[in-house]
């Protein structure tokens, strides 16, 4: 008994495993080196950033000081935070309302409405980029926060996931509440919303990052520096400092480090707010991404930049 348990644990590594391990390390270097290079670059002086040294020999915060004092980078960060936060909260509120109606209420044409909402998932950016711009221009929402926020609110992805989740809530809970004299609003507000906390937490991370990382729409809709999101601001900074060859890359690296900070959190922090969502999402809808290994971060599947 005892030997049987010990033998596989102490077995020497097979050559094949050895080879796989070497390959895995090589790919990990390929995947991680650019990120580390970026991170350390922000703390290097301008001359050192142009040499091959990996660690900064004299770590400096000058680059960060520069982008906060000579460039309105703080403003860009705050704009991005403000827009992403508002879009996330309002969109999730609207989506959960719509999802509640589609999942829990009975009315004529429900399936038709759901199919139409679902069909908008197939509409991709190139089809509507130009006409959407024309619509937003006619609504006088160019170059202001409304133009950034309002069109970003509406996408069927959130509605779809929330609906799939709401379908699984036992009907008896809701019937009891209605019998007790609750109106539909109170059922939604006091029962459905509290029950959907785990999925809303996961979607909050996803929506926030999708909006934080959004680039093409803010680029098109904004003209005025004071509304720029951090992605557009960073791109503008790149255009300014790389002009004429002798670029000061260390400013850009410092700016990029700050821009990428929120992106890392959901992957790296094991205690991100998406607790038990994995279980809850699995049974419906997401069949193709089902079966992730246990212990693999759930946020991984939900993070990304899919919104527009």
């Amino acid at each position, binding site marked *: 008994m005892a030997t049987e348990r010990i033998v596989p644990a102490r077995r020497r590594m097979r050559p094949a495993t050895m080879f796989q391990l070497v390959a895995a390390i090589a790919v990990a270097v390929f995947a991680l080196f650019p990120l580390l290079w970026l991170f350390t670059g922000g703390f290097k002086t301008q001359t050192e950033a142009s040499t091959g040294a990996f660690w900064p020999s004299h770590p400096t915060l000058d680059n960060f000081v520069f982008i906060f004092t000579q460039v309105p980078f703080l403003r860009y960060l705050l704009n991005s935070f403000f827009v992403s936060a508002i879009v996330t909260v309002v969109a999730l509120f609207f989506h959960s309302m719509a999802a509640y*109606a589609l999942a829990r209420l009975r009315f004529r044409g429900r399936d038709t409405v759901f199919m139409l909402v679902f069909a908008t998932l197939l509409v991709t950016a190139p089809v509507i980029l130009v*006409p959407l711009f*024309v619509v937003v221009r006619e609504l006088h929402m160019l170059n202001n926060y409304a133009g950034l926020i309002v069109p970003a609110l509406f*996408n*069927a992805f959130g509605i779809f996931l929330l609906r799939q989740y709401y379908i699984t809530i036992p009907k008896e809970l809701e019937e009891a509440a*209605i*019998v007790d004299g609750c109106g539909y609003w109170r059922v939604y507000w006091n029962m459905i919303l509290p029950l959907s906390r785990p999925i809303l937490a996961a979607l909050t991370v996803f929506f926030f990052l999708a909006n934080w990382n959004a680039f093409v729409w803010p680029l098109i809709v904004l003209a005025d520096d004071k509304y720029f999101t951090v992605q557009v601001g960073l*791109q503008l900074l790149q255009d300014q400092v790389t002009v004429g060859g002798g670029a000061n890359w260390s400013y850009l690296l410092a700016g990029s480090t700050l821009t990428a900070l929120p992106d890392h959190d959901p992957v790296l922090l094991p205690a991100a707010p998406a607790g038990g969502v994995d279980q809850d999402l699995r049974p419906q809808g997401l069949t193709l991404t089902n079966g992730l290994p246990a212990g693999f971060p759930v946020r991984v599947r939900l993070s990304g930049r899919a919104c527009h």
Partner: protein
Amino acid sequence: MTAPTSARTASKTASSELPATAAKSPKLNRRQREGWAAALFLAPDVIGLTIFIGLPMVLSFVLSLFQVSGFGQYTFIGFANYQRIFADPVFYSSLRTTLIYVVCLVPGGFVASLLLALLVRQKLPGVGFFRTAYFLPFSISIVVVALIWRFMLDDQVGVVNQVLGWVGIPPQSWLGNPQLALGTAVVVTIWVQMGYYMVILLGGLQDIPTEFYEAARIDGASAWANFRHITWPLLKPTSFFVLLTSTVAALTGAFDMIYVLTKGGPANSTNVLIFYIYQQAFQYGEYGYAAAIGTFLVLIMLACSTAIFVTTRGGRFSYGD
């Protein structure tokens, strides 16, 4: 016994009155109230989706029939924008660039992701670290990704040329040479996406019942036979999903990367259609013409999706396959 029963009847009468007074008209029955409630719950999203996705959908075709002047004057010109497409040499070069980009990126990215998924399915020491490491690039915004790589590939200070110099490869202008720039963009895009598709493929791999592999081991099947006769056929639904998503992403999602990395240059060598649409609309103000190219791109997308769908038979498979 009597007390709870009466309490229940009391609450029932109360329930039939209370929501009724809360609703618009006391005469509505429950079905009508439910309908009204649903309409109000759905209103914000349905109105928003109609204005910001439905309306632009319809407009995209309508707009392609107009010429739009710089002052927002619309002139109906029929199909002239479409005729213009076929006489535009930049469009042809852009179409060619797009096809090369898709044909290199989609299979290249798929093979890379599949190899990674097969690798991290093994019981390697530290496999959790490797999975997270491979996924990390995907979590970062494309603007930052493109910027890092521009820095690393820079002609003067880039670390890539320095490293290649150690093994005797002469420095290249990775983003400045029209013959290299598109390939560079493909490699950078694979670097971003490999971890994401790896996660999806890994999910597919782990859904394959282990009994198949156990049976194969008893039969003494080689690793290649395992892959060829078990993994590959049973992974088809997931492969289908990955190929379809990455094709659509390659056709429509390349904008951010191309914009920051090369702005379509040098000499239009990375000017893919989605970037050309942007150029026409937002740099030259040719909204009508841009909308026409957009419609054309949608047709290409539908054609590609159909091709993938037909060749993989919808990603379906049977155990007798």
